[in-house]
């Protein structure tokens, strides 16, 4: 009976879509990490940069996650790393998704020369292995965190541009877009009102998937000395460090788990949001009652 009443008010069903177990797990994990990012220094049992003679010590009451090759507390470093890796990756994904989708949408809508220029630039970037091109750009600009973000932006926008362009091309000639233009609106209003809302879902899903790539790319650049620099407790750097000490599994495992958990959490949330933002997905719930 409740289903019948909600069919007239679709807005009510958004929380329903967000109520699946995986989504709850995702939200809880992401909220936990957000808390870690905010409270960071208060949660660290030790100084993440303080070295000690107690090298590669296994898990113990004093060091819950053990210590790394310089005797630093891994738990403290994982907590400190959250404040670097998470905001930076979010920033990067937000930037490349905005720049990439805007360029892709404009290319798809305007076509012609604009389309050619934007897409050939994208091809140019995609022709190189991501990490190598990012290295080249970062090296040319000089090693710093800002330059690392710029370098990553340069290599990540084309995938958004390509996906958005193809979606816009598909949506551009659909009848409701044409019908909108017949009402006398300009192309930008048409893009905003009719095209973007109908292509945003897949792009949104891509950003959540890309979040993991962003963390890995950042780690890769850091590993090569072009992003964050040791002894900064960045997760990627910590994993690279741990790989060299194979027997002390905890050095790489805990930052690795941290990356894994936040990436999964974002994927779960992304899936749920994509479904919740699409009114047609609600039909699957409502149609049973109809």
């Amino acid at each position: 009976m409740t289903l019948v009443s909600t069919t007239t008010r679709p807005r009510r069903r958004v929380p329903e879509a967000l109520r699946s177990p995986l989504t709850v797990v995702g939200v809880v994990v992401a909220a936990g990490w957000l808390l870690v990012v905010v409270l960071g220094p208060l949660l660290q049992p030790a100084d993440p940069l303080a070295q000690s003679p107690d090298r590669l010590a296994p898990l113990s009451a004093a060091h819950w996650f053990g210590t790394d090759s310089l005797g630093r507390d891994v738990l403290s470093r994982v907590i400190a790393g959250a404040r670097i890796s998470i905001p930076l990756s979010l920033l990067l994904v937000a930037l490349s998704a905005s720049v990439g989708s805007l360029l892709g949408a404009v290319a798809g809508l305007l076509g012609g020369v604009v389309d050619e220029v934007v897409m050939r630039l994208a091809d140019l970037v995609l022709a190189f292995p991501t990490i190598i091109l990012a290295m080249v750009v970062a090296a040319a600009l000089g090693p710093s965190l800002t330059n690392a973000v710029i370098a990553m932006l340069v290599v990540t926008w084309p995938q958004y541009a390509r996906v958005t362009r193809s979606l816009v091309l598909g949506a551009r000639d659909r009848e409701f877009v044409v019908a909108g233009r017949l009402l006398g609106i300009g192309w930008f209003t048409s893009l905003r009102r009719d095209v973007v809302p109908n292509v945003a879902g897949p792009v949104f899903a891509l950003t959540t998937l890309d979040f993991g790539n962003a963390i890995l790319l950042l780690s890769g650049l850091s590993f090569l000395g072009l992003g964050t620099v040791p002894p900064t407790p960045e997760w990627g750097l910590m994993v690279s460090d741990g790989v060299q000490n194979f027997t002390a599994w905890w050095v790489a495992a805990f930052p690795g788990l941290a990356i894994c958990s936040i990436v999964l959490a974002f994927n779960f949330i992304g899936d749920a949001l994509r479904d919740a933002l699409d009114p047609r997905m609600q039909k699957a719930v409502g149609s049973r009652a109809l």
Partner: protein
Amino acid sequence: MAGELVFDEVTVRYGRPGRPTVTAVDRASFRVRPGEVVGLVGESGCGKSTLAKLACGLVPAAGGRATFDGTPITPYGLRKRPAQLLRLQMVFQNPYASLNPRRRVAAQLQDARAIHPATAPSVDDLLRSVGLDPALRTRYPHQFSGGQRQRIAIARAMATGPDLLIGDEPIASLDASLQAQVATLMRDVALASDTSLLFISHDLSVVRLIADRVVVMQAGRVVEEGPTEQVWSAPQEAYTQRLLAAIPLADGLGTIPDVAPA
């Protein structure tokens, strides 16, 4: 009274890379007079929809001239459609594709009302005029049936205060039991607000029901034109005679109509 659409010897060609161009409309001339309901009939591919697209500025004319109340119609491309031409609106063939799936019905009707906000009927009145309950205004298009969506599309077109409404096969994707109903509705709402109607269809029996005048097209050309009953009772062209003979008759005897050869 306004709402006169004139096609004067218009030609439309589609260019295809690596293949010869197709002449979809070949020096076609006819007019829709103010307040008139004109049925445009012909088999698939004869150029009916291309004429509708031309009238809406979606395709360019390779020759001749199309005007709406004296304003020449040219493709608007990426610009906004000229204000004088906004009084010409279209109802599309596919009701499942002609409404934005992500916006509520009321919002989409509001977009159309925005052209003449002072004189446009309210959203509730628009829904009532096409036989829908105003309480449905907050729903999304997917919550409606095909026939209901086509009613909403008609309401959206009427919300702009049009002088001419073009229906491009507006009933072709509807259930047979709804076709006559929606076609009649379209005629009624158009006439109620002094709007001319150009009704494009390959369904001659429905056109006969609603049109004052009929224009018959074949292979891009206008082959016959005249008052509906006259065309029906005394078709002059051989092609029109074949078209009329091809209307299926439900006599229960399994009679298959003669198919008009292309």
